[in-house]
């Protein structure tokens, strides 16, 4: 069902945990649907220096969270805003079709975290 890459990121998720001193936090999803992602970022000079996540959800949701935090780290905010559902799925060597929409919330949660950071800067 899942690619080896998904299984790797699910079984050994990177960047798990809370980030008490986060610069931005984004949450996406709904536990009633089965998937919720919370993404934390640290930002310096418009760049994401660190990212962490907490996720309630299926294998795909956890793997997506792990992947999106890995990808985001080191990116500028504008680069990170270009991460999409499709680019995440591609980075994971694909996701089953029924998981594309309900579990692939990583980009949205990340974008929300960036928004949160920018709102705080105002």
């Amino acid at each position, binding site marked *: 069902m899942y690619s080896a890459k998904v299984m790797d990121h699910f079984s050994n998720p990177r960047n*798990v945990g809370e980030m008490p001193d986060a610069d931005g936090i984004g949450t996406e999803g709904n536990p009633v649907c089965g998937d919720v992602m919370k993404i934390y970022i640290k930002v310096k000079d418009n760049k994401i220096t660190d990212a962490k996540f907490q996720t309630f959800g299926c294998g*795909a*949701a956890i793997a997506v969270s792990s992947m999106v935090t890995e990808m985001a780290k080191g990116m500028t905010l504008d680069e990170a805003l270009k991460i999409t559902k499709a680019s995440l799925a591609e980075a994971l060597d694909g996701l089953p079709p029924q*998981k594309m929409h309900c*579990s692939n919330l990583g980009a949205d949660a990340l974008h929300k975290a960036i928004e949160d950071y920018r709102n705080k800067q105002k």
Partner: protein
Amino acid sequence: MNKIYLDYVATNPLHPEVFEAMAPYFKEHFGNPLSIYEPGMHAREAIENARECVAALINAKPKEIIFTASGAEANNFAVKGIAYANQSKGKHIIVSKIEHHSILNTARFLEKQGFAVTYLPVDKYGTVNPADVEKAIIKETILVSVIHASPEIGTIQHVEEIGRIAKQKGVIFHTDAVASVGNIPVDVQSLNADLISFAAHQFYGPKGAAALYVKEGTRIVPLIYGGIQEGGRRAGTENVPAIVGMGKAAELAKRDLRKRIEHVKALRDKLVNNALKTDKVLLTGHPDKRLPGHASFVVEYIEGEAMLLLLSAKGVYAASGSACSSKALKASPVLISIGIPAHVAQGSVVFTLGEEITDNDINYFNETFPQIISRLREISPYAKGWEGTEGSACTAQK
């Protein structure tokens, strides 16, 4: 690595003796059972022998057994067959809310064809109150169909009582016993059912063979029309090896039933007792009146499919009623019916045992399961509680 199959309610491994019984009917005795020459007659006899064994398992007469290819077919046949045979009397049907999809979706189809359907509620254990059946029966009611035992939560219904009420009111009673026949005693004489569905692959028999018990004298319209197989009630060239396998599996189930029950019940109790030691793990379904090899839980703050995947990586194969683990992406309606909030239902996990499971397997499982729960809770944003998110409905994403 250990490989522990704990999903017997999905399907059973084939018993070696069953396979042995089937083997000659693939190549050697391949004849069509309708033929009048020797190879065909040999197949015909094998089918009739199997029918006797299958009938004996539920204490029915051989001619009351109609073979089908699956439990779902038996259920569709029962509900549509009785509905069409009795539509001149009335067009009202009663089912429970925790029926298998093969009953629920058939009921919905009949609604489109002009039938009315009452869906009975269940209590927090998933039990239908027989008094509710009595209240729901009206003059136009032609059929009551209530599942015997739930594959999702294990609960066994008061079918004898429901059957008694139906009989008293002159209404036909069907019970979907796919999850129970072969796993607990089912006797048509005491069950008060006019029709009973059951499937071989639920008691170490093959896939491709199931049956509908139709009490003598009950008129039913075929689901599959055609030739005169099964007394004209279910057409199609018979799947001879599968039917022979079902006969053998029935014979073994009848012989070993008590032993099998004792075996799985002791191990299941050990599993349940250990699982409930972990915080916020709840048993779903009835604590006692449940299938003997059946343990089902909701584990709060984490999701079922993720549990299944980690369990599978540890060699433990199980099932879940979570939205993510179902290909339909909906949380099990059964869990919702027993009052489990939708977000908690996401943490559903079901373990079902069979005769191959050993005490060592359960020891290994009991060690593994709590580890997996805590690992996923470490990742979860809800590890300290649901934070009041539980109210919102799930709509947007699908």
